[in-house]
């Protein structure tokens, strides 16, 4: 049997390999979404497709990749597609890969002396995969095919050579083909380097030891998960939360979380049926998001692999908004992902409120702008980013201002990069005062970010949430301010309010303004330390009236008193 020391060394070696894959992918990539925002993830799997190690990238990708890789391998077997050394498979079909079409998954087998020993995989959000709007995610798609090119598991590299006809087929179906090509090559490079590192481990320890270590690594993670679950009390709790602006109404997510001994069962029975709108979540999204919340309240440092998922089961009724089936559109399922975390947290708060934050802004605040160049040059462009918001207040800590929460963790695109590469000017990028919900520990402030279009026409799509329903507070904390998305028309100065999901046409000079929601507060605001209220006031984050209204604090000059 492999000794514990060797297996720990191998576990670290695999995590490191996944990290290195991510660095390669970022550094070589072409689209700002990957090279600046790091909207990508990498992981390594054993020969049966079980997740062994992953780098700390994007939770939504990471949590869904294990499911996606297994589904991909099953598909290949079913379709009699044989993999061999130096092949790379590409797939974005959500019902196999686990998330929306923009997330392109690559899976590459690792062979050592003609024996399959592992797989490397990477998932990257492509700025465009075709479909009805630039950036591919629309607010009003009613079926999957409106959201872009669907790629079932297909070899894009075979025996080390790029399959030009496959590449051309993809590039013909997307906006910004030259950018997509750069990103795809970077993904292949990432798989290569991951494979190289796994082979080095095989040379060093031998395949037999390596495979034993793989097993041990998974068992180890399971043992740690068990131990940390045993530290929590047993409970059975339920909660509901809502998605807004869906086919004229709302959809409900209902969850029941049952923790008994050393395992957890999460059950989404009672959630809305799937809808003809893009918020449907493939099972991969639901799995990733609900287990994310569990990991956060058990041990955030826990090494995540297959072993963790053995202790946490997720049931979601087929055909529902949390386990949609073809041909339901899924482009905006990233928003559903955020709401699933909120719902699970809300349920958990009924058992372990000290371990759970109040609601964060509950959205990724997706902005997509793009179009065809009017000069007839035949080129098209697309811009995609997600915008930070307020984090929920926690027991003993304020919510974080202006940060990405829960299922995403992408960076912003530097303003100086946007302006140099796209026909956009950034007008404003600041905290959004007064947006954090009041509380003993207040919610984080959202962000105001606005763009002006510098070319004569483009399409804007905004995919958000919490425009109507505010991020909830906990333990007496107040809700955060809802999000606000609008366009200021250049010609008329008219302000056009957008709903949480909208696609509109922009003209030159129009300004798109995104005000993201604040986090919910935690605890009774009247218990907030007077000094903290004063500091927020002095930093222009709350007004004197708000200090009075929410906190009962009178501010005079540079001093604050509690009204008694």
């Amino acid at each position, binding site marked *: 049997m492999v000794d514990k020391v060797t297996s720990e060394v191998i576990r670290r070696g695999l995590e*490191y390999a996944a990290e290195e894959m991510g*660095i390669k992918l970022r550094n070589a990539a072409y689209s700002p979404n990957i090279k600046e925002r790091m909207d990508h993830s990498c992981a390594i799997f054993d020969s049966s497709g079980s997740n062994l190690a992953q780098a700390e990238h994007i939770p939504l990708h990471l949590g869904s990749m294990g499911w996606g890789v297994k589904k991909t391998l099953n598909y290949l077997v079913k379709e009699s597609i044989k993999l061999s050394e130096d092949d790379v498979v590409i797939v974005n079909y959500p019902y196999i890969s686990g998330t929306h079409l923009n997330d392109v998954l690559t899976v590459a087998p690792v062979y050592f002396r003609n024996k399959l020993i592992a797989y490397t995989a990477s998932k990257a959000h492509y700025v465009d995969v075709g479909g009805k709007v630039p950036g591919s995610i629309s607010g009003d798609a009613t079926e999957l095919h409106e959201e872009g090119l669907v790629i079932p598991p297909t070899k894009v590299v075979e025996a080390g050579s790029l399959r030009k006809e496959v590449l051309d087929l993809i590039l013909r179906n997307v906006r910004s083909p030259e950018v997509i090509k750069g990103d795809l090559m970077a993904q292949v490079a990432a798989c290569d380097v991951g494979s190289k590192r796994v082979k080095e481990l095989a040379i060093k320890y031998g395949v037999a030891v390596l495979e034993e270590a793989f097993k041990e690594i998974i068992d180890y993670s399971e043992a*740690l998960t068990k131990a940390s679950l045993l530290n929590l009390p047993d409970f059975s709790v339920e909660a509901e939360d809502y998605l807004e602006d869906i086919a004229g109404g709302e959809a409900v997510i209902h969850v029941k979380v049952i923790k008994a001994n050393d395992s957890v069962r999460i059950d989404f029975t009672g959630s809305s049926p799937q809808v003809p709108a893009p918020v449907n979540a493939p099972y991969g999204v639901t799995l990733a998001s609900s287990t994310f919340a569990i990991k956060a309240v058990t041990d955030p440092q826990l090494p995540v692999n297959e072993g963790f998922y053995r202790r946490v089961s997720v049931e979601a009724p087929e055909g529902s908004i949390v386990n949609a089936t073809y041909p339901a559109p899924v482009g905006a399922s990233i928003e559903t992902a955020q709401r699933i975390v909120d719902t699970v947290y809300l349920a958990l708060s009924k058992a372990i409120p000290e371990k759970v934050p109040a609601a964060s802004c509950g959205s990724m605040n997706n902005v997509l702008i793009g179009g065809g160049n009017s000069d007839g040059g035949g080129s098209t462009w697309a811009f995609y980013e997600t915008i930070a918001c307020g984090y929920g207040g926690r027991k003993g800590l304020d919510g974080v201002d202006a940060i*990405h929460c829960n299922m995403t963790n992408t960076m912003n695109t530097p303003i100086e990069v946007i302006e140099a590469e796209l026909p956009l000017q950034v007008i404003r990028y600041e905290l959004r005062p007064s947006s954090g919900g009041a509380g003993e520990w207040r919610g984080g402030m959202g962000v105001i970010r606005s763009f002006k279009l510098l070319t004569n026409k483009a399409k804007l799509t905004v995919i958000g949430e919490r425009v109507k329903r505010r991020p909830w507070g906990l333990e007496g904390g107040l809700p955060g301010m809802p999000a606000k998305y609008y366009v200021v028309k250049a010609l008329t100065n008219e302000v056009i309010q957008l709903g949480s999901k909208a696609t509109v046409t922009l003209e030159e000079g129009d300004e798109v303004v995104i005000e993201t929601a604040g986090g919910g507060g935690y605890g009774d605001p009247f218990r907030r330390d007077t000094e903290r209220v004063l500091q927020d006031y002095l930093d222009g984050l709350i007004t004197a009236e708000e200090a009075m209204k929410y906190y009962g604090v009178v501010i005079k000059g540079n001093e604050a008193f509690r009204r008694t």
Partner: protein
Amino acid sequence: MLSTPTDPSIGVLEGIKEVINESGAKVIDVIVHATTLGTNAFLGQAGLELPKVALITTEGFRDVLEIGRQRRAELYNPFITKPKPLIPRRLRFTVAERISHEGKELKPLSKDELKKIAETLRDEGVKSVAIVFLHSYVNPEHERMAEELVGEELPNAYVVPSYKVDPEYREFERVSTTVVNAVLMPLLSKYFSKLNSLLKNLRLGRPELLIMKSDGGFSTSTEAGKVPAATIESGPAAGVIAASRVAKELGIMRALSFDMGGTTAKVSTILEGRPEVTKEFEVGGKVHKGRLIRGSGYVIRYPHIDLVEVSAGGGTIAWVDEAGHLRVGPYSAGSEPGPASYGRGGKDPTVTDANLLLGRLGDSLAGGEIVLSKDLAVQAFRKKVCSSSGLSLEEASYGTLTLANAEMARAIRIATVEKGYDPRDFALIAFGGAGPMHACDLAAELGLKKVIIPLAPGVFSALGLLLADYRHEFKASVLKPLSKVVPEDLEGIFKSMESKARRVLRDEGVPDERIFMLRYADMRYVKQSHELVVEAPKPFGEEGINYLREAFTRKHEEVYGYFMSDEAILVNARVSAFGEVIKPSFRKEVLKESFKSPPDLIKAFRRTYFRDSGWVRTAVYCRSSLRPGHEVEGPAVIEEYDSTTVVPPGWVLRVDGFSNLIIERI
């Protein structure tokens, strides 16, 4: 000597006076100084308050500094926090102005607004003002105007415009670097100039005060005072410089500097005698369980010696997790209470304790000043590791060593493999108190063939201060596709940086014959964001363009495994300028042809544990008795005042002409 945080110049001066008294020196020529003052200020050392600093930036962008890259440093932790902004929001001001990415003025700078802000700053008693406008790296005119105006209104404050300290694109990194400089100026720049004048008053000649920088070069205190953020990691840099000198002296093309102390191990790569330098680092980051979390500190976009640091030192603690697995680090017992065997109250077993139990360390350290207790080490392992893991004492202590080595091996892999180097091509230069004890095991683990232990490994780092050169980096933002680069223009850009470099070095007193310069180009494909660095030809003529294109293509293929037919862009032209300093030379003895085993120098024998052979009777030597030309076959242990070298079976040690221990595989 106790340090004096409120006015560090007092402590430093006292120390210098003491040295002078002891040595009877009459004249001091040069004083080289490395300081952790800046780092300590960020880590919140008592008595070191960060000064009141303000930021003036483009209208609409008040919070870029605070929002950062909008990312959280820990993915799954619901209790994450962000670093507190160095300038509170109330001291961040915006002014109407706008420059486009092409350098065109879109909106003029509002001098009226600026004047009003300056008045507020004066009332607030601000000590330092950072000025950062969008796209100032292309056109600094607005920053320059604001600098002048604010300077007039606040004659006693430091004014730091970004174009002077970090003229490169990506606004967050630029504002962060500028702000760190602005924060450090009232502390460091003031301290440098005060120390300088105190030294001049000592009537011991006119000593030149040189400051070590994070990139391993030094500059005069005046130059360093203009970019204090560039000096912040100067301590660890010194050790790497010392190792570089050894590598150069021995003609080693690829070496690893391996510095293992009480709490961490630091690794850097040295190519052809020069340490490798990277572009960006973070100061004051949050440490979670002893490990620095990336994204939790303040970004400084300056070159610094590329150090990989891991939690593995003599004081690193072995423990057992909830699943019954042996783990090592990242907790450390530090120097207080220290390892269990020190008998100072430490209850946790550490790497040093494991070394003691395995017979690698003798019963005392520092020439007998610290007596080690095996009993205490045994107790600590039994209680904290053996009972909960089921491991035997031997398995536990050897496992501790192996895991600590694995952590350090990871550091070496990050330092080499990530850049595409094969660690097996490197020689390991090991120092720090614990380095020589682990060096051969680590070399074996990674397939390295040669280990070098320099003289006085415990204090080797300080030697680096005497061995550095003046070093200055210059960069010019070009941002042009290669096909649009006009060779004469680029030659002009390089030349103007070189003449500026020459001017600075001459001012620092470096004669022309000791000035060396290297040209570099930062390049990428137009649509990428992360540059690869290639050397640029001198002079840059017509054929230069093709040279760069080919060099870049080769490098891209080397790093990523493919190249594209797309256009490459020249992002920055850079010049590294060195002013070589005459350094103390190492004494070298001429050796006869063959090495000989020293007769009768064995001090003692003791049982020592090795991976492949288990417990072996091992000869113990005193390093001071080993002379150049001596040869010792492993297993052997070499003891000296501040360190212990372990030579496993299958390795042979030879003492070279410089008295370095050269250990190689047989």
